């Protein structure tokens, strides 16, 4: 019954029959989701509150593993292997698949150290290399001009929008293949939101992006593909223009026309 388009282009991730159950929950929060994620494009996940968007997103970098007792079933294929395998190297996986959160999460350290953090974890110590890559990441995150004179300052002195871009810089500095965004603008003002949206579109040249959003206009503005989820099911996945204009499923249509949600 679900209507999932076949993506002709290369895919970076393949979700197959994926179910997820939280610890102690009686029913799974995701039920046999199957979904391709196209490479170098933006895939938006929409759907009413509690439908499982965040749960799906946090499965891609195995964030759920921080809290024991959750159960994964099925398969998520990435770089030719099933990353749900218990033997998967999570440290490596998370450097390949980065994440941006609902609220800015600047670490309690300087702006420079924030951006350098992931690279330092990987053992890069060379000062010139670090400086070069920090500058590049900040430029790519469109925040270099604002912070270049105060790299040594505490990152918590930045505004919310700046902090969120700093977090993006921090995530792209380690050159991941995929970036996950969970409602990255829900805590930001309209101007900062615009900046982040522009950034998302620019970044897809280099990474594949999955973005969860409550805002259908945002999904329409930034994404190439959109998935509509409902009660743990992926109801429909299609090209963004088609899904919003001519949805194939009745539920999708009801949702995008504001009948519920």
């Amino acid at each position: 019954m679900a209507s999932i388009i076949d993506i002709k282009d290369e895919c970076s991730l393949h979700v197959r029959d994926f179910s997820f159950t939280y610890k102690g929950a009686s029913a799974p929060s995701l039920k046999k989701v199957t979904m391709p994620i196209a490479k170098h494009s933006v895939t938006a996940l929409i759907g009413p509150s509690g439908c499982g968007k965040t749960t799906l997103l946090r499965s891609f970098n195995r964030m759920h593993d921080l809290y024991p007792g959750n159960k994964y079933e099925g398969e998520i294929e990435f770089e030719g292997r099933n990353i749900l395998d218990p033997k998967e190297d999570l440290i490596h996986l998370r450097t390949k698949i980065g994440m941006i959160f609902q609220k800015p999460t600047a670490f309690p350290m300087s702006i420079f150290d924030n951006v350098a953090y992931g690279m330092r974890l990987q053992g890069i110590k060379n000062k010139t290399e670090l400086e070069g890559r920090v500058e590049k990441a900040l430029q790519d995150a469109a925040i270099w001009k604002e912070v270049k004179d105060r790299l040594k300052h505490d990152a918590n002195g930045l505004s919310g929008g700046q902090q969120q871009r700093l977090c993006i810089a921090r995530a792209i500095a380690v050159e991941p293949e995929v970036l996950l965004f969970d409602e990255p603008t829900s805590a930001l003002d309209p101007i900062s939101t615009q900046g982040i949206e522009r950034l998302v579109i620019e970044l897809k040249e280099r990474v594949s992006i999955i973005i969860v959003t409550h805002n259908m206009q945002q999904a329409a503005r930034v994404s190439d593909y959109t998935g509509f989820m409902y009660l743990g099911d992926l109801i429909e996945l299609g090209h963004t223009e088609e899904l919003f204009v001519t949805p194939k499923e009745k539920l999708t249509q009801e949702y995008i026309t504001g009948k519920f949600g």
Partner: protein
Amino acid sequence: MTATQKRIIINRIALGFSTLSAIIALAFLFWILGVLVMKGIHSISWNIFVFEGSPPGYEESGLKHALVGQLILVGLATLIGVPLGIMAGTYLSEYGKNSKLAHTIRDISDIMMSAPSIVIGAFVYAIVVMPMGHFSAWAGAIALAIIMIPIILRTTDDMLQLVPGTLREAAFALGAPKYKVIMNVVYRGAKAGILTGVLLGIARVGGETAPLLFTSFNDNFFTTDLNEAMPSLTVTMFNYAISPYDDWQQLGWAAAFILSMFILGLNIVGRLILLAGKRK
């Protein structure tokens, strides 16, 4: 070895040390608890509740005097400290709120909460024992009450602030005067929290020895005269423990056991009340 492998090894070592320190800490603490329980159960008998203190070597010696004295001292301290603490906390939460005076009182009271209790004993010695010319239960109870007030004040203040403002407004809208709103609405809403605070306050002063050493002092015999020196479990325990007599030391452990169970019990009940209140 790559940087990441190194990090993983460091991670293991660091977490191992942390777990190890937790195990060491727990081992020591359970050692103490174990000693307390073993010694306590070994020394406890019916005699303890029936007989008073007696010179070393007597069969018929017990802790009745200290048990009753302890109850009197803590009871008296509760009667003095709880109303004062609750009223002071009420002022802070309902009248003082964010005024400078209220914050000063909160800060000073917080510091008092951690002040050395033996100093409170010295203070009460100067203001009560010296004028009276002798030790007394009153002096001991006053010292304990002074220690208790900041604890009750703090929890009352915190718990009353948790009562939603809309509840107060609803009562005011019915035309109730402020004291009635506080008595009938605010106190009722914070009942569980205040009760927990009182129990924890009692538990805290119940274990105090230092402030009693030179206020209520000690006595090896049963007394209910508040104007006389009065035995307590804690001071009795201290005196018996440092005595060279085996049977007195045994009684000291029995006192330690009874007192600890009482204090742990109060703590557990206090927590349960708070939990039950939260669930509602």
